[in-house]
C-alpha cells in the first residue's frame, strides 16, 4: 500500500542519515524516490562522503559503496531489530580507517544487539569479546575452537 511503503521509506531514510556519518566520519546520505508515484517508484541511495560531492551510490569507489551499503543494511535492520545480527565478511573492501569506524558502530549497537561477525580482518577481530575459530584439520570436516586474537592470526594462516 502507498502509506506502508512511504512509512518504510521514511523510517529507513531517517536511519541511513544517522548511520552514514558514523561510518564515514562525516558526510551525509539519504534515499530518493526515482518517481512521483508511490506505487511504482524505485529507490536510489544518494551519498556524500566527507569532502566529496553527493552522488548516486553507483558512482562511488569500491570501498565507499560497500560502507554505504552497510549503512543501508543497519538502517533496514533497525526497522525490525532482531536480538542478534550475523554479518559475513562485510568489511572485506574497507581500508583501516573505515574498518575502525565500522567496528565503533557495531560496538555501539551491541548494547542492544548481539553481533556475530565473520571476518578475515585483524582490526575487526580485535574488537570482538569472544572469538570462535573454525578449522578443517580433517578434510572436509569443520570443527570449532575458542581462540584469542593472537591465535586467530595464526589460524588465518590456514
Amino acid at each position: 500500500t502507498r502509506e506502508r511503503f512511504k512509512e518504510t521509506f521514511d523510517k529507513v531514510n531517517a536511519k541511513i542519515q544517522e548511520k552514514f556519518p558514523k561510518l564515514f566520519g562525516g558526510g551525509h546520505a539519504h534515499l530518493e524516490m526515482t518517481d512521483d508515484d508511490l506505487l511504482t517508484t524505485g529507490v536510489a541511495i544518494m551519498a556524500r562522503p566527507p569532502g566529496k560531492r553527493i552522488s548516486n551510490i553507483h558512482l562511488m569507489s569500491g570501498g565507499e559503496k560497500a560502507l554505504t551499503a552497510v549503512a543501508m543494511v543497519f538502517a533496514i535492520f533497525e526497522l525490525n531489530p532482531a536480538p542478534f545480527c550475523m554479518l559475513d565478511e562485510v568489511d572485506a573492501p574497507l581500508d583501516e580507517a573505515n574498518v575502525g569506524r565500522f567496528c565503533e558502530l557495531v560496538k555501539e549497537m551491541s548494547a542492544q544487539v548481539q553481533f556475530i561477525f565473520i571476518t578475515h580482518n585483524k582490526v575487526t577481530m580485535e574488537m570482538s569479546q569472544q572469538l570462535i575459530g573454525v578449522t578443517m584439520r580433517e578434510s572436509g570436516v569443520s570443527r570449532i575452537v575458542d581462540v584469542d586474537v593472537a591465535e586467530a592470526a595464526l589460524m588465518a594462516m590456514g
Partner: protein
Amino acid sequence: MRLNKIKLAGFKSFVDPTTLNLTSNLVGIVGPNGCGKSNTIDAVRWVMGESSAKHLRGQSMDDVIFNGSSSRKPVAQASIELIFDNSDGAIGGEYAKFNEVSVRRSVSRDGQSTYYLNGTRCRRRDITDIFLGTGLGPRSYAIIEQGMISRLIEAKPQELRVYLEEAA
C-alpha cells in the same frame, strides 16, 4: 532475548555434533577460506525456516546434509538447534513462560524437514510464528550473507524498492 547456543550436526561441513556457545554480544568467527564459517550463517537461516535451497547455496534441500569427504562417508540427516535465553519473555505466546527456548530443525535424505520447539515436534509455521515480532525469520536483515552487500550495491531502483518492501 539472546541467542545462547547454536548446535550443528550433519549440517554441511559440520558433520560431527558441534556447539557454538555465544558468551558475548561481540562474537567474531574466524578461520581459513573454505573451513565452514559461512556454513554457520546458512545453518541459522535454515533452522529459522528458509525453504529455498538457493538461499542456502544449494540446489535441493538435502544439499545441507553432510555429503562426505575423503575421510568420511555421507550421513543420512542434518540437524540445527538454536537455544535462546528468553528471560525477558520476548518470545511470547505459550513459550513466554520459558526462560530458555530451543528451536530445532532436522532433515533427512528424502528432503523431509522436521521442526521441534523445546523438544516437542511442531510445524514449520509454529517456528515462524514464535519469531513474529522478534525481527527474526529466514529473510530477516538479521542475517547478512557473503554477497548481500554486493547485491545491495548493484541493485537497480526497482530492486531496491522490493528490498524495502520485503523488509517492512
